[in-house]
């Protein structure tokens, strides 16, 4: 299946173009149904509304840091839609759409960005999702270990792991690809190549023409897809999933996409990139092309879109308030999760901290 889209031959899978037209000549890949496309649209829209809302909350001083994912939503939504509910999801930190699709409450996600560990309490059997990973590409190895465990436990679960274009230069990414290949484990690596690692452009990261082609050196296939086309993302992930289920090993998918916003709310992209470049990508927005398609097919109209936006906005605000109103941690809580049982020494330090905080002078 992957042979027809070899990135080394300059191939990039695109099923739906920027105008919302489907390339009907592509028949050898799994296609989304219209109802699936509608679902994808809804999650991308929800992630988009949440994203824009989060940036504005940051400007209001209510959210200290947030990494916008605007323009990239199709990557995590499309790929997670191609996975099963029991499959494992190992995010980096710009996969809000995928997290929403998994059913992770937005209040948890906001807790994370508000600096509260409780947000990363993902019940294993409920979400099958690892916590976000801040040290770049380090999570790729966790995914390979999870895939080994799934193979060992013979439970037929596949693992998908996300990483950015900058992450592909990290040793952990390359070690993960190598271990995954050598062990032939059921794992899918998904690169969100959004062209920028903070201020460093993709071309500085590597001399390779594509990031997808790196897979071949590790003995498995790679594919580059239009990451702003949710149909391509879905198709490639579905194929990789099937391959993994048939014990044919890992796959590397490069979603060719673009970060329309800043790296995080602390970043100013005008320092390192031109507005003309951003404008070009605004035309390739994953949301716009889906709207065009769905409207053409009479599956949605302007009224329905606005209704959805209002509904999401309301829900997002409620979820944010839940996160915002979480009471701050107690001394007991910041100690409680260091170990299963608090060692004597830490009990003593905890009680000393309590005394110190009370400021009592003997």
């Amino acid at each position, binding site marked *: 299946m992957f042979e027809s889209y070899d990135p080394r031959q300059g191939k990039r899978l695109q099923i739906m173009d920027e105008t919302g037209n489907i390339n009907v000549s592509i028949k050898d890949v799994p296609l989304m149904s219209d109802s699936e496309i509608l679902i994808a649209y809804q999650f991308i829209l929800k992630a988009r509304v949440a994203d824009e809302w989060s940036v504005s909350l940051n400007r209001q001083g209510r959210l200290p840091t947030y990494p916008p994912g605007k323009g990239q939503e199709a990557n995590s939504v499309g790929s997670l839609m191609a996975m099963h509910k029991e499959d*494992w999801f*190992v995010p980096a930190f710009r996969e809000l759409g995928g997290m929403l699709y998994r059913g992770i409450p937005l209040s948890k996600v906001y807790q994370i960005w508000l600096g509260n*560990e*409780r947000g*990363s*309490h*993902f*019940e*294993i059997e409920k979400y099958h999702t*690892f*916590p976000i*990973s801040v*040290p770049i590409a*380090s999570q*790729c*190895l*966790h*995914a*390979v*270990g*999870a*895939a*080994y*465990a*799934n193979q*060992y*436990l013979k439970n037929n679960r596949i*693992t998908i792991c996300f990483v950015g274009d900058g992450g592909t230069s990290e*040793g*952990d990414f390359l*070690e*993960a690809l*190598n*271990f995954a290949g*050598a062990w032939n484990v059921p794992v899918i690596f998904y690169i969100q190549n959004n062209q920028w690692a903070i201020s460093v452009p993709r071309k500085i990261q590597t001399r390779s023409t594509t990031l997808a082609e790196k897979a071949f050196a590790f003995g498995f296939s790679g594919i580059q897809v239009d990451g702003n086309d949710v149909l391509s993302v879905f198709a490639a992930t579905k194929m990789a999933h099937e391959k993994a289920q048939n014990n044919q090993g890992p796959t590397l998918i490069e979603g060719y996409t673009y970060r329309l916003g800043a790296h995080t709310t602390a970043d100013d992209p005008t320092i390192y990139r031109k507005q003309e470049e951003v404008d070009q990508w605004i035309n390739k927005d994953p949301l716009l092309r889906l709207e065009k398609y769905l409207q053409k097919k009479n599956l949605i109209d302007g009224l329905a879109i606005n209704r959805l936006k209002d509904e999401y906005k309301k829900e997002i605000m409620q979820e944010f308030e839940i996160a915002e109103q979480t009471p701050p941690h107690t001394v007991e809580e910041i100690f409680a*999760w*260091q*170990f*299963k*049982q608090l*060692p*004597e*020494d*830490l009990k*003593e330090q905890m009680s000393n901290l309590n005394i110190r905080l009370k400021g009592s002078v003997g």
Partner: protein
Amino acid sequence: MKALTLVQAVNDALLVEMRLNPNIIVYGEDVGVEGGVFRATTGLQKEFGDKRCFDSPLAESALAGTAVGMSVLGLKPVIEMQFSGFAWPAFNQIISHVARFRNRTRGAMTTDMVIRMPYGGGIRALEHHSESMEAIWAHIPGIKVVIPSNPYDAKGLLIAAMRHADPVIFMEPKRLYRSIKQEVPDDAYTIEIGKAKIVTAGSDLTLLSYGAQMKEAVEATFQLKTRGISVELIDLRTISPIDKKTIIASVKKTGRFLVVHEGPQSYGIGGELVSTVTENCFTDLFAPPARMSSPDITPPLPRGERLYLISTDMIVNKIMELINYRP
């Protein structure tokens, strides 16, 4: 019971516990067919197959990183870093993830793995094969650091580590791997992590050490006994967290304290223990609590190693100095 060397006791611990727990996965460099460069994993692949004991590609960060994923999904990885001096590529995974998953996820996920690594000098090895850097690991919140000093403890502590709910770095004194044999029970047994052991009760001075350095500490205790000096010898066994209770009770009784260990002095285990003693036993002390360690220099290669390691005579002399101390 059978007489085993320390490395055989490690092997035996892995063997008996792997029979009991099918989720234990042992992997690392050369641990499969060869059974490890020190033979700590001999026979495991043969008995348990190559899904439970196998040679991994050569990358230490990947050993720790993949073990994170395995442990979150419920396996119990026991990985081997061939030498502690080669563990540093895994440092990021250990400090950023292994030590943090329980706290980061508020208990939803745990990375309860065992990371074994031979450490320490005195085997005439080349560069990077003689370090005692346990203080660096011990400084990391969220992991436990265990160092046995004899075959019996090695088996009991390693089995305890494999049953522990949190990640354990298990450092093996390779200088003692084959130097002593000891009667070790055939079945599985555990020694509690976080508890020091009073090896010899005494009344004049508390001498504390751990790992390979226990050999000289035992010899010094014995020599001093013939001079009429009663040393209470403590084997720390768990480097982090420290069993303060046992140490404090001992020093309150003896009034004198010396800690001896390999590895750099500054910011080391010795400094930590001297602080503990000073804070808790200040009015009980007859002499300043003291530490003896290697100097803060790069461990010399074998030609200079005798200058770096601590001998029995050095310990005896230091103890005599503390016994004879007059303010």
